[in-house]
């Protein structure tokens, strides 16, 4: 009996090593996946100044698996639903992240589209709750200058003109969505010059 146990010990040791290696491997694999999917943008992301978007066919079978997984994780696949092409910005045109204590101005050109909307979200895609009860503006309701140009102001304190209230949260992002636009074609080049700039103003 004793000799059997003695003979089994090396087997058990090898088995334990296999189990340890397998567990370590699975934990490592899942950790890498989680890090990539939570932080990454995917290979198919398009950047234009502060804006990041994905080509229209992001949910189609021909997109790379990383982009698919990242879009599924963040819920951002919804940006390209219903004939919309969406871009999000986490910060201003200089690259620094949005600070809710600051005032931001969005102005410049926008690509041609039948309609576009600009919406405030939390980084997870929840609508920002604020006193005005408005989280977004559409291209039709904007007040425009005589030359057709526009300025949208994001701030906590009320402003005249096209104003969205940031609300009481630590972080926010903005989403610019174009409905029924030429951007939908797969090879559409997105020119930074035709995306609006996001300029930081005073902070308090």
């Amino acid at each position, binding site marked *: 009996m004793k000799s059997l146990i003695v003979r089994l010990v090396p087997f058990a040791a090898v088995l334990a090593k296999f189990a340890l290696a397998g567990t*370590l491997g699975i934990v490592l694999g899942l950790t890498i996946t989680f890090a990539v999917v939570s932080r990454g943008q995917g290979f198919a992301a398009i950047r234009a100044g502060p804006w990041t978007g994905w080509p229209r066919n992001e949910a189609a079978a021909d997109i790379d698996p990383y982009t698919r997984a990242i879009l599924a994780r963040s819920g951002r696949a919804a940006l390209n639903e219903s004939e919309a092409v969406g871009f999000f910005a986490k910060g201003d045109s200089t690259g620094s992240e949005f600070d809710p204590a600051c005032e931001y101005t969005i102005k410049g050109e926008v690509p041609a589209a039948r309609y576009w909307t600009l919406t405030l979200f939390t980084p997870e895609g929840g609508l920002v709750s604020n006193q005005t009860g408005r989280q977004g503006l559409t291209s039709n309701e904007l007040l425009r200058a005589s030359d057709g140009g526009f300025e949208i102001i994001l701030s906590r304190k009320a402003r005249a003109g096209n104003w969205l209230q940031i609300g009481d949260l630590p972080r926010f992002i903005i989403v610019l969505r174009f409905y029924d636009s030429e951007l939908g074609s797969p090879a559409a080049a997105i020119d930074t010059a035709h995306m609006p700039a996001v300029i930081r103003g005073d902070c308090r």
Partner: protein
Amino acid sequence: MNRVDRLLVVLLWTVSVLVVAGITHIAAILFYPKTVSLERFSQISKLAEPGQIAPLPFAEPGEQPLPFADPAVAQSICPFDLSRGGLRLHADVEAGRLLTLSFHTSDGEIFYSMSDRGAQQGKIDVVVLTPSQLELVQADDDEDNPSPDLRLIAPANAGFVIISALAPHPSEKGEARYRAQSVACSIERLAGS
């Protein structure tokens, strides 16, 4: 065991850990989007039966049907199950009013999308079919009197259509909700199926 042997053993175990990690990573990346999509599909399936239309609530802070939902857009969903027959959608389009349809499979692929600009004489008529259902329909076609239907082949039997209507001004939200709901969605029974 001398030092070289010991180093080799350590190396071998490290490589095997990395191989397992690599396989786990690839499998997780490939399966994750499907599980998210299927979960979403099962939520949507609870809202309506296949071939029926159900409105999604307007996105408001704290109660959004989907993340990143545009608060200016009213949406309805119509699930389909092609094993019970084709899906027919009919919409009367108002000039200048943005109405879009996007066609999803249960595992998250958008296989078609269109806007009211694709309407013919103010009407959108779409039939979603499996390849064998399309053959049945085409066998019945009258060459002198072509069907106005847009025929789509779905890559999977189960899925859903999202109907979206934009309210260009906040005061038009009610009207947008009405337009998103007034799309007719029904099961198309086919001879022989």
